[in-house]
């Protein structure tokens, strides 16, 4: 176990717990930023540099900022005295714990995963090769994703439009 992995994984998990449990929504958004940086560090450790920087650009630069904007627009920043969770919150926690337990036991107990000795290290493609693959092999998925992003952009803009005020009520007699 190398130290870099332990630090990145510990930081990611601790920040994720904080992001899901803090009371102030702005603090939650900032902890979410730390979580996404930790995951980007894990991507770097795995040798996927381009994905790591894309993660920082998209998740930290766009999604976390969007969450902060939504928090401010809906006036949910600040500390509230109301309960944070649904009342039988132990049920949700128990379900999540069951899912994690099932995944971890199956990962640790399965003999199907490739082990260290048998692994063949894939050569990480450079950004240039990645771009060439995106423009040749994966050009159709790329166009579909472009269409999806355009549709999402238009949809979000239409949803965010302020509805026109209803016409002035008829004058009272």
């Amino acid at each position, binding site marked *: 176990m190398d130290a870099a992995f332990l630090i990145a*994984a510990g930081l*990611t*998990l601790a920040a*994720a717990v904080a*992001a*899901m449990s803090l009371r102030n*929504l702005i603090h*939650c958004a900032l902890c979410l930023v730390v*979580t*996404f940086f930790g*995951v980007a560090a894990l*991507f770097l450790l795995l040798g*996927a540099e*381009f*994905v790591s920087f*894309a*993660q920082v650009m*998209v*998740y930290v630069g766009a*999604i976390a900022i*969007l*969450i902060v*904007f*939504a*928090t401010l*627009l*809906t006036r949910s920043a600040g500390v509230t005295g*109301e309960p*944070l969770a*649904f009342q039988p*919150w132990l049920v*949700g*926690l128990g*379900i*999540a714990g069951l*899912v*994690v337990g099932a995944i*971890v036991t199956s*990962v640790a107990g399965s003999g199907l*995963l*490739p082990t260290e000795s048998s*692994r*063949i*290290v*894939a*050569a990480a*493609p450079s950004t240039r*090769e*990645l771009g060439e693959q995106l423009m040749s092999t*994966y050009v159709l*998925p790329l166009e579909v*994703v472009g269409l*999806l*992003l355009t549709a*999402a952009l238009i*949809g*979000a803009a239409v*949803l*965010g439009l*302020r509805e026109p005020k209803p016409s002035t009520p008829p004058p009272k007699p």
Partner: protein
Amino acid sequence: MSPLERYLIVAALLFGIGLAGALTRRNAILVLAGIELMLTAANLNFIAFWRYGGHPADSGTGIVFVLFSIAVAAAETAVGLALIVTIYRHRHSTKLDEFDELKG
């Protein structure tokens, strides 16, 4: 424990934290954040399997898959937050348990 298993277990824990947040928190924005955490955990699994899965022939497949997954996550967040802001304009609340009727 092999390196692949370490990353898979970290991703499973991240998924569980996101799932717990999405299931228990009352605020709609944090439920969306929990869903983002779950998507990120899936991306971590993709990259871990790409690195240690042992398929040298398709060297870029895992990375390209994650790039598309990140794009879909961004689109989902944009539309989801626009929906939350629109609901807030009507109901003046982001608490999920107060959205209990279909009439606007």
